[in-house]
């Protein structure tokens, strides 16, 4: 391929990135660092301290949801990878199908299930048990996150596990490792790329999620995503909204950087 064709092919992508990625980022940064009159100002940044609780809660919820996703998805992905090839296709489809349904619809469905007079409580009462208060709890919010994001954990884990050569597990056994040691010293390190990409793909949207907390938390567990939405939708304070977005972005970047470091560090474990 000569240079001319190469340029012709890459040009549209370059344009796309400039218009839809670089420019919006620049606009966010601009809003975050200016006041209503358009003058440079750090006011929006200092105002962030008002939201310390919300930020902390978002990170905490995101962390819990990510861990729950990992714990649920890891064995599931392993089971998937051990079944016949034809079964695997079906199982992966079953994981993906809910993702094709609208996110808002799925969250509404959980509401209907969890409500005090919802399906779960209806069922509990019909078999003579006392109803549970499920909706508007932090548990419900985290459940909503796990439910929505678990496929993003399953798929990368499943992909690395199908590529895992069973010989390594046999080699570990051969050298005297029991089931737990195989899991800890062979499985986990060899599936680490899947773990890292799964954690990234769940943690990032969990931390910045909105709507789930509004519908399942009854407004009691405002998350950082909700605050951002509020600034744009109801408070019309684009500057503050942009500065929170910027903070979130920086925070996520830092998290990813740390995680990637963690991923590399183990590679050449020290003697």
């Amino acid at each position: 391929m000569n240079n001319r064709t190469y340029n012709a092919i890459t040009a549209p992508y370059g344009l796309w990135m400039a218009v839809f990625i670089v420019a919006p980022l620049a606009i966010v940064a601009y809003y975050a660092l200016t006041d209503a009159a358009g003058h440079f100002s750090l006011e929006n940044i200092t105002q962030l301290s008002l939201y310390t609780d919300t930020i902390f809660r978002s990170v905490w919820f995101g962390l819990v949801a990510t861990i729950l996703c990992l714990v649920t998805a890891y064995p599931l992905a392993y089971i998937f990878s051990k079944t016949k090839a034809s079964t695997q296709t079906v199982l992966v489809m079953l994981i993906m199908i809910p993702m094709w349904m609208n996110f808002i619809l799925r969250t509404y469905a959980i509401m209907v299930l969890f409500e005090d007079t919802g399906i779960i409580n209806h069922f509990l009462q019909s078999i003579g048990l006392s109803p549970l208060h499920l909706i508007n709890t932090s548990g419900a919010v985290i459940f909503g996150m796990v439910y929505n994001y678990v496929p993003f954990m399953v798929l990368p884990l499943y992909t690395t596990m199908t590529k895992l050569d069973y010989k390594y597990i046999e080699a570990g056994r051969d050298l005297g490792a029991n089931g737990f040691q195989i899991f800890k010293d062979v499985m986990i390190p060899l599936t680490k790329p899947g773990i890292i990409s799964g954690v990234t793909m769940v943690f990032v949207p969990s931390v910045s999620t909105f709507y789930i907390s509004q519908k399942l938390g009854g407004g009691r567990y405002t998350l950082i995503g909700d605050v951002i939405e509020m600034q744009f939708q109801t408070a019309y304070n684009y500057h503050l909204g942009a500065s929170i977005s910027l903070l979130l972005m920086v925070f996520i970047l830092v998290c990813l950087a740390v995680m990637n470091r963690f991923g590399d560090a183990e590679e050449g474990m020290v003697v």
Partner: protein
Amino acid sequence: MKENVIITLKDICVAFDGETILNNLNLDIKDGEFVTILGPSGCGKTTTLRIIAGFQEPDSGEVIFDNQVMNGVPAHKRRVNTIFQRYALFPHLNVYENIAFGLRLKKMKEDAIQAKVKEMLALVDLRGFERRSIDSLSGGQQQRVAIARALAVDPEVLLLDEPLGALDLKLRKDMQVELKNIQQRLGITFIYVTHDQEEALSMSDKVIVMDGGEIQHIGTPEDIYNEPANAFVADFIGESNILDGIMLSDCRVRFSGHDFDCVDKGFALNEPVDVVVRPEDVDICAPEDGMLTGVITSVTFKGLHYEIIVDINDFKWMIQTTDYSAEGETIGILIKPDEIHIMKKSKYSGEFGDYSSFSDEMDYISNAELDITDLDDITEVDEDE
């Protein structure tokens, strides 16, 4: 070599999806022996090794180590270690950590581990490679790390599953010598699986020839070469001309229309037998002096000798000779009595030993195909577990 039996396989049967892999296998392995299980792909040799290692349970039969039945004992509790076909070195660990893996599981102290790893690296001639990553090693170096890793945990028996298959010829020869040296120095039992007959002959104390899930012949390399048990063994180990013959009496056999003196006894009168004559044991002479005469149909120069195909009474013989003869020439052949080996008829009779369709290329093609089936075998086993 000590005389006590360390591993016994008793009446082992294995089948996958109704297909018999091992059929009533019985085997004793002595302490300190270098035993090679030799056979074509799909003969059940890898399965035999996996049963000893504990990666697979036989459908029936007993696996006995030192008079103790080991059926049901998982691999990590058996005092045997395996060197895998493609080494299976852990890619996330460096050379040091790979070798230390088994030692850490034994909860050894760090300084003891360090000493052991160092000793092992010296044994396989890889001093100073501790911090290298597995990816940065050549095939031969990875092979050495795999040997070091398996030997570090002091196994009583080392199982080697075609360990040299991925190396080029020159390196393979070097490693053969080295493996044999290591085995002799450490005095532990090696059970070595290969489809390479030359490898088996040059390294082993004892060779077990397998085909179709059954043992065809157990013996020293000299035994299986000089006195093959049946047509399969004769053909698989080296080159053989295998002819139909009739025993006229003790030490007298008729084949190819001529009566020969031989040294084999104990057959029934006029019993049909298979007669094996190795290509290098045939002497060429003038047609009028020959016991048999034939026309040369092809001549191939092989370096050490010429390989000629001779049509004698419609049977194509392979003869290896250092004297050049031209294609189309008529020659006579002489065979000494002790160079004729008589075998009982078996299910393999008539299948092997005629060079009428002989070609190096065909040999090569059919081998490669069989390798694929071998890989399939392994995946099947994986699903099983």
